[in-house]
């Protein structure tokens, strides 16, 4: 499965349930639009860490990393302990 889509599914389910993953653009600014704030950052990061095996203790994370679906995907590509095959193909 495309990882952008999985990230969208998560964001939509947790934060914007009236929207479908298809409606959420890769570059939609989640921070400026108030979907995500500094408090929900931790929640997202914990989900990413569980889902993609990211060693949180060794990784610096900031709001910039969750500013949009594309940014989250790049964060995962950069930090996941195992190479994420589906991402590498993209």
């Amino acid at each position, binding site marked *: 499965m495309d990882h952008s889509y999985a990230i969208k599914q998560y964001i939509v389910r947790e934060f914007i349930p009236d929207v479908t993953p298809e409606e959420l653009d890769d570059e939609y600014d989640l921070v*400026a*639009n108030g979907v995500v*704030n*500094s408090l929900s*950052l931790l929640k997202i990061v914990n989900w990413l860490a569980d889902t993609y095996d990211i060693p949180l203790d060794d990784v610096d994370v900031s709001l910039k990393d969750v500013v949009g679906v594309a940014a989250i995907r790049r964060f995962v590509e950069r930090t996941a302990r195992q190479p994420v095959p589906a991402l590498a193909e993209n």
Partner: protein
Amino acid sequence: MGRSHSLPDRLLERARVQPEAVALVLDGERVSYAGLHAMATGAAARLRALDLPPGASVAVRAVKSPETIAVIAACLLTRRPVLLASAELGEHALEALLARAGCAALLDGPATTRLTAGPPVGEDVSFMLTTSGSTGVPKIVPLDAGAVDRFTDWAGGRFGIGPGTAVLNYAPLTFDLCLLDVWATLKAGGTVVLVDQERASDGRHLAALVESEGVEVVQGVPLLYRLIADASDSPLPGVRHVIVTGDKLSPRLLGRLPELFPGARLYNVYGCTETNDSFLYEITGTEESVPIGRPLPGVEALVVDETGAVLDGPATGELLVRTPFQTRGYVGGDAFPDGRFRSGDVVSRDEHGVFTLVGRNDFQVKVRGTRVNLQEVEHLLLAHEAAADAAVVGVPDELAGVRIHAVVRRTAPGALNSLALRDYCRTRLPRAAIPSTIQVVDDPLPSTPTGKPDRRSIIENLRNGS
């Protein structure tokens, strides 16, 4: 001749007498008083090159950085009124704010933009702060240099800030709290330990920063202490003064403070942007709820009933307050009647003259320390062409204090979704006022018998997950 009480005079003096001392720390980067002075001198030259009309104000887009502080210092040193504009303001809101303030220029990092200057705001004005009002244009609160000088002197003395004292700055640079943790500290020759906005919710980072930088004075909203308490079990014995302000302290958090800061005196401080700090209460840690305490020296506090009549002795009513630190009135508005500010807060005063905050008398809530008027957010949503009806409620939230929830009925299925509404809010509201959840519905909203939105049942529905 006595020593000058003027903030800009004292900043110059610090650069002269303790040039090597650290003025600012951000993410490990240290700026000495000499360095800050050099940056401010550079910024002052850029400002002069703009050749602005005398007395015209300028605005600074207040991203948290040593550079921003140097630019503000340059304004203070050149006696130029300076509007601190939030870096989070939407573009329409920023434009409207600059127009209302009549600023002659916007300083945004190294970029400067000339603007059409409005009428001067008054020679004595130094800082111009904004009330954290929720809709488009916040009110502008001009502070005279004298008010700032009196406040910074009081704060430095009250919390023992002197040369070398490390003080944590948690709030964004636009908040009135910075008059204490940034400006009183610099005036006294201390070290301001700036919390990077990006890492402001990382409790582990905050605790480590306090520890490693030897912070002695901490000021912040309850959220700051909650984040530290949740992330760290080890006490921070180096802290001498802990100032809680801006919101109510929950009983659970209250109980944690003495063990977390075993070497500190703990205070609950009440104030608002218009008046700055006005009440102080020293916390023992055994209270069931924390009062706001007594008025600070020089502060007059009145309790009035609905008709405006002044109540004596033990009483509950709206707080009217006048402080040595306050504004004379909003930009473009009248001076406060008799110099007294109507706080909008309901307080009770006991037989000993100790005040307790009861609540707001309107739709004001605090989200992550920022004041938001729910009704104003509701009106904004209602103004959207595809919104048939809207209700906005505040829901208690362990971390944020309150989070905002909006229910919007659209004119037709498919006419609107929450992403479009967020786009709409983004350019018109400060970030804290954008609802954290927006529910778009096609059925009528629950309403009261008088046809108003039934906020209570909306909150109930939310709790029950429907």
